[in-house]
């Protein structure tokens, strides 16, 4: 049964126009009907999400081993069939798309800040970057890479921003924790405040960063995450 389950899932990924979550796949299996072969569809009705996940992992390994021109990837919270990089020249010709322009450095920096510190207000983003971010935020909103996720409680109730599904897809991320430097920089606002207060109290002599001394390395040679 496992063998066929894999194939059904493969077929679903083949036809889907966006990443599918294990949850969605399970639901499709639970609800699909086959009038000509009712027994077959029946047998997959009770497949559990864990089985779907396991089948996907197997599918991924097999597709790599068979060296297909496509691969199974986890992206933006779901699973998808995508082509391999080697075939890019021909696919670019086929699809003849005007790909979106690469993002500028200020846009990428602002996006990194939002991704790793969301939800975050415009003012807090600007404080980290040292400059205004109005123009960049407008661009990122237009490209649906960020969105308004709420309002802050502080006086003035400024808007808070966060990243979108499209952001994850654009950069091939599974989720926000898949971001470069997520482990170092992804602090909730509260934890950040506590860290700042702690540092101020123990401050004496030459400055030492809040994280451990190993961080010194990152300024001369960026770590490969």
């Amino acid at each position, binding site marked *: 049964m496992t063998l066929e389950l894999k194939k059904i899932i493969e077929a679903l990924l083949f*036809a*889907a*126009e*966006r990443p599918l979550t294990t949850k969605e796949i399970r639901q499709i299996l639970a609800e699909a009907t086959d009038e000509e072969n009712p027994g077959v569809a029946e047998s997959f009705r009770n497949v559990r999400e864990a089985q779907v996940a396991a089948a996907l992992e197997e599918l991924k390994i097999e597709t790599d081993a068979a060296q297909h021109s496509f691969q199974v990837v986890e992206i933006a919270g779901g699973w998808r*069939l*995508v*082509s*391999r*990089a080697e075939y*890019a020249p021909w*696919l670019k010709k086929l*699809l003849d*798309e*005007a*790909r*979106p*322009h*690469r*993002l*500028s*450095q*200020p846009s*990428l*920096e602002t*996006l*990194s800040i939002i991704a*790793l510190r969301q939800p975050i207000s415009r003012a807090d983003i600007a404080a*980290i*970057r*040292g*400059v*205004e971010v109005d*123009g*960049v935020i407008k*661009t990122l909103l*237009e*490209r649906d890479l960020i969105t308004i996720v709420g309002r802050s409680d502080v006086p003035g109730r400024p808007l808070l921003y966060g990243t979108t599904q499209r952001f994850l897809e*654009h*950069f*091939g*991320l599974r989720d926000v924790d898949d*971001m*470069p*430097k997520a482990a170092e*920089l992804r602090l909730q606002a509260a934890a950040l405040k506590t860290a700042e207060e702690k*540092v*101020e109290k123990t*401050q*004496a*002599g*030459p*400055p030492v*960063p*809040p994280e451990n001394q190993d*961080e010194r390395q*990152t*300024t001369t040679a*960026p*770590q490969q*995450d």
Partner: protein
Amino acid sequence: MESDYRVKLEVFEGPLDLLLYLIKKEEVDIYDIPIERITNQYMEYLTIMQMLNLEVAGEFLVMAATLMYIKSRMLLPADQQVIDTEEDEGEDPRWELIRQLVEYKKFKDAALQLSRREEEQSNIFARRGEVGIEVDASKAPLAEVSIFDLINAFNDVLKKATARDDFHEIVEERFTVSDKIEEILYTLRDRTVILFSALFAQATSRAEIVVTFLALLELIRLKRLKVRQDQAFGEIHVIKVA
């Protein structure tokens, strides 16, 4: 110098970018910044940017004041300093700035890695429904060579030129950006690439150098030319866009 153009740069970088650039260029330790040296360099850059009529954001000036303040605190002996009751005593005056720079640098590194991922993703395709791709052609950043690299190169040219004997300070001819644009395009009519420094070889006055530089910036903005650097802080190549 008469300027018929007021060149406005689309890429908006700020004082922290400039400081990180200087720290890297001067090869100093970010955790132990030589404040006097960095402040002097910073002010030099600010002066050039203003000389070129580039839009200098207020934040640059605020940072200049901050650097001056830190510098003064480090120069005064401890007993003569005004103790700011809000800060801890004995705190290194550079601390807040360094903390800010270190944090910002981490986000910059994250952005760089994001950029690589973007590149990788651009070679991978999946089945698409509606192709909802927006082409944002208006925002064309000086991606490969930063504005500070250009200013650096400009500064080098200026220094070399003023050292020459035949260099005049008094403007004898009027140079307009439009004329220089035509001239640069004419120089490149039979070739695709030219070294940045070569564009200024014939200049005989500071005004001419400035106007030539502005013309180059405008041509970059119009996407008629692009600039590349083979190595960090190396020669800049000016390339004609097909």
